[in-house]
């Protein structure tokens, strides 16, 4: 199996490349991204290409002629780039990479990263959607995910190859940049005053494991992948020993502006997570991919806070207090 990992520079892409390298049945691993991989890779080939640079991207993919694609070139708004750039990069990366992989002629299977944002939130929708729930995204990131899924489904239809979409809960880890991670780590965090909706997070390693299993097994269809259990804004904020600031209606405008200034932009899908909820039924993926010992949502939250503090350099005298 020759696996192309798009978005290999991200935490997810790097991790799944490491997992693929360790498997004897994977003949070669190659990937590209606009940033270099996060960790050392043993035998994977990496090329630094901006996903919007069509010609270089297509040339690279055609040369590699992958039999499988693990598509992680789906960029979350406000994680590493502005919402606009993220949407554009995702679209270009999906169209160009999948198109070139098909043209190379050896493609046998595709797995794309999607998100549980595709279900959207609002009245009349299932509270805990399973994979059959209607796809009506209510945020730009949700719509981007849906477009990626639709594009991949088109490839599946036209070329008759199995395509799987992994609808991941918001991926978060202590070291991976994510807008929800940044928001929860502010000293004071805005939370809804009259609601406390549950949300689920997914650890980077579990997301990578799910991708590995989906690629190796040649999975087909949609799968929700979520961290077991849930957390709620009030609870998560207190778990991190932060101050919850109750916010109502128009107060959210102020809260978003303040958070933005404090270095934590709040894109619509993160605002929706905090104000509505963000959960899904992950039973199918657990069964199909035999995902045992997934890291529960509350441990992902705790992990966020374990690495949270950026201690500024102390003056003389304070150093002893810090190390004590």
């Amino acid at each position, binding site marked *: 199996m020759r696996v192309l990992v798009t978005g290999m520079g991200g935490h997810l892409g790097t991790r799944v490349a490491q997992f693929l390298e360790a498997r004897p049945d994977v003949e070669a691993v190659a990937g590209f991204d606009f940033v270099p991989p996060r960790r050392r890779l043993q035998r994977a080939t990496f090329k630094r290409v901006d996903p919007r640079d069509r010609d270089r991207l297509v040339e690279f993919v055609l040369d590699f002629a992958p039999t499988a694609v693990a598509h992680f070139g789906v960029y979350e708004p406000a994680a590493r780039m502005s919402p606009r750039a993220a949407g554009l990069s995702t679209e270009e990366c999906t169209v160009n990479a999948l198109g070139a992989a098909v043209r190379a002629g050896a493609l046998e299977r595709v797995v794309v990263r999607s998100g549980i944002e595709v279900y959207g939130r609002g*009245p009349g929708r*299932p*509270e*805990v*959607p*399973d994979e*059959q*729930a209607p796809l009506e995204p209510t945020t730009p990131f949700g719509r981007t995910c849906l477009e990626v899924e639709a594009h991949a489904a088109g490839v599946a239809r036209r070329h008759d190859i199995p395509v799987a979409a992994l609808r991941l809960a918001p991926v978060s880890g202590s070291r991976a940049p994510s807008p929800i991670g940044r928001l929860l780590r502010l000293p004071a965090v805005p939370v809804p005053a*009259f*609601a*406390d*909706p*549950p949300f*689920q997070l997914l650890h980077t390693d579990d997301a990578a494991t799910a991708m590995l299993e989906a690629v190796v097994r040649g999975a087909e269809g949609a799968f929700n992948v*979520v961290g*077991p*259990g*849930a*957390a*709620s804004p*009030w*609870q*998560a*904020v*207190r*778990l*991190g020993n932060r101050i919850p600031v109750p916010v109502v209606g128009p107060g959210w405008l102020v809260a978003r502006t303040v958070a933005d200034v404090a270095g934590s932009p709040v894109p619509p899908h993160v605002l929706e997570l905090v104000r509505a*909820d963000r*959960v*899904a*039924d*992950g*039973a199918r993926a*657990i*069964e199909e991919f035999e995902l*045992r*010992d*997934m890291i*529960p949502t*509350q*441990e992902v939250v705790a992990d966020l806070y374990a690495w949270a503090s950026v201690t500024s350099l102390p003056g003389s005298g304070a150093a002893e207090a810090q190390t004590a």
Partner: protein
Amino acid sequence: MSPTVAARAAIPNYGIDADRLLGSDSLVGALRRRIDGRYAVDEFGGDPHLQDLVLNPVVDRIRVVVRHGDRLPRLGPALLVANRRLGFAEPFVLTAAVHQRTRRRLRIVGVPDIPLLSTLTHKLGGIGSRAADVAAVLRAGHLTAAPLAPSWWGVRVTEVPRELLAATMGFPVFPVAIRAGGPIGLWLRPWVVSVGEPLAPPAGTSLGDPLVAAELSEAVQQSIAAQLAET
């Protein structure tokens, strides 16, 4: 059948069993847990710690006689379908009956969708009335109760939730008859809760078959009517 039941064991729940009642801690201890955020939350918005803390003292005051309580499952998911008269009290009575016989928590289907009330009832283990959500709760291994009506309150219609039974096919369904008793705490005659034989679709039916769901609904209704005539 329900892979999440096994997975659930790994969830950090601060010593709180997601399924079974526990003796609640002291008020100070409970308050401290709340302030520190050291409590479990499940994906349906439920908060088992708060559920025990708030619901148990209320429910324990209800006088209820349970007939055939041994039929209630000690483990795993099941759907109870109960008749209602005035509504409102029935979810509490059912919870009392389930506590008395199994020491398990009960999830109530069809809590009202009103902003603050919805948050609160969800925390206490309620879920909305959508069939897909009820199926998700059962897949997660919970004991769940639904009314033999469109909702627990409002119009008095005896209508079997056919859509619900179609969506949750494969999980055991228990028809439960409730005969009204005195209001909470009053020394009048007790409530009577009678648990019927569990019903299941015949082996080999495809999940969600509308015809089988209709037959199942019929069976549930008949069983409840028969039990009501008995009590």
